[in-house]
């Protein structure tokens, strides 16, 4: 028995915990909505689809980009926001546990956006709250709305997500944006996925397992140079110094994963697009910014229309 709900209905009141909570068709519906939002933003004609709604932004971990883009998305659509960030969260909570803080916010707001340093915090919050909970990053695990805007950006650049060769570079073990991006690809049909990282920062078992389950052709490698020439999309993430027990190891790794204009001009296909969830440290040198390869600023700007689309779908305000 197949009982597929139309996407507009399946989005209604949904929690957004992992990108794998969604089907390909649901994501494509989201991208349609995001395209519409983007056009309306450009025309300056965004309707107040969420007038009267209150959205709680509960950022237990500090954030700039993600929080501001959620806040902007909510406000563009006419919603109000409440919330806190980082240090403030400690005084808001004053030793209160997460469950109680979530219950309080659930009483005030129509939806809760949460970022927290513990893996699983968003799922837990979704179990506690009656209103929809959106995961804006739980520890090293998931960052589903980042993956949504990443795929939307790929689709915008190439017209399709299928059939491309992807390279995901950097900290694949602790980086939640990288993990969510890889998981998101399992919902589509990439031609090949290269996972480029030092051995210490290889993708986690549960992520590799999803690639295998989805029958995706992938390869783990340490060398960007070797695979760069094949790539359509290079997704770069930050390698954090604090992950390395030995600082000299870090220095070696850092150097080998630096994406420079020269490297790209020597090795990359002309159509290659370089993406990055930002903020970057020095893994992409500034001289890449004004090349045809750089897609990370476009990607960052897409955060607002994609999150507008997400909110509108969850509240059943767009179809």
């Amino acid at each position, binding site marked *: 028995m197949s009982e597929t709900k139309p996407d507009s209905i399946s989005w209604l009141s949904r929690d957004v915990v992992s990108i794998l909570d969604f089907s390909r068709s649901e994501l494509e519906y989201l991208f349609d909505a995001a395209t519409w939002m983007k056009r309306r933003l450009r025309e300056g004609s965004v309707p107040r689809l969420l007038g009267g709604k209150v959205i709680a932004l509960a950022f237990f971990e500090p954030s700039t980009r993600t929080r501001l883009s959620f806040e902007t998305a909510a406000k563009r659509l006419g919603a109000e926001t409440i919330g806190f960030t980082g240090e403030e969260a400690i005084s808001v909570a004053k030793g209160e546990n997460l469950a109680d803080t979530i219950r309080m916010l659930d009483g005030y707001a129509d939806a809760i956006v949460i970022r927290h340093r513990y893996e*699983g915090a968003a799922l837990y919050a979704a179990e506690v709250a009656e209103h929809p909970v959106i995961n804006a990053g739980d520890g090293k695990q998931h960052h589903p709305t980042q993956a949504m805007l990443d795929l939307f950006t790929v689709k915008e650049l190439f017209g399709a997500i299928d059939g491309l060769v992807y390279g995901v570079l950097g900290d694949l073990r602790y980086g939640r944006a990288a993990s969510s991006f890889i998981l998101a690809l399992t919902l589509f049909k990439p031609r090949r996925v290269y996972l480029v990282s030092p051995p210490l920062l290889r993708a986690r078992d549960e992520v590799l397992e999803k690639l295998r389950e989805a029958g995706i052709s992938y390869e783990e490698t340490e060398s960007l140079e070797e695979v760069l020439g094949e790539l359509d999309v290079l997704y770069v993430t930050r390698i954090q110094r604090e992950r390395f027990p030995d600082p000299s190891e870090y220095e070696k790794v850092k150097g080998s994963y630096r994406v420079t204009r020269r490297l790209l001009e020597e090795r990359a296909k002309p159509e290659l697009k370089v993406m990055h969830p930002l903020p970057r440290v020095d893994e992409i040198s500034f001289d890449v910014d004004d090349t045809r390869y750089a897609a990370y600023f476009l990607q960052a700007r897409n955060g607002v229309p994609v999150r507008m689309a997400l909110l509108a779908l969850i509240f059943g305000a767009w179809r």
Partner: protein
Amino acid sequence: MRKIREGTVIDHIPAGRALAVLKILGISGEEGLRVAVVMNVESRKLGKKDIVKIENRHLRPEEVNKIALIAPTATINIVKDYDVVEKKRVELPSVIENILRCPNPTCITRKPREPIKPRFRVLSKNPLRLQCVYCGTILTAEDIVEQLIGG
């Protein structure tokens, strides 16, 4: 050991796991229960097996589930008046709640003062692999044995 009049016989335990089963049940011998442990005996189904017989003790459902984690082939025989009156295979529930702890120190289930139970979904039964519902961490059969009977 003479036949027991009343109690439980845990049969078809993989060879070498009998003491682990006792440990899971919290039976050290100091409780004064009469316990017989038979190890490495021939079995038609398993080649070799262990058996544990415990007089005057019946198992709670969560104890049976725990046994399933380390001795998935075990059968639980309930003895009344010297006869086996009920026989059931242990069965792994599809979700394991409360029994195991997530090894990931930053899993939400490890956060102090949260009313949350650790929960694992069964990824595969043979070999046994579990996954934390909250943080995605995968536990292998060895991790599970180590945690339940470790050191």
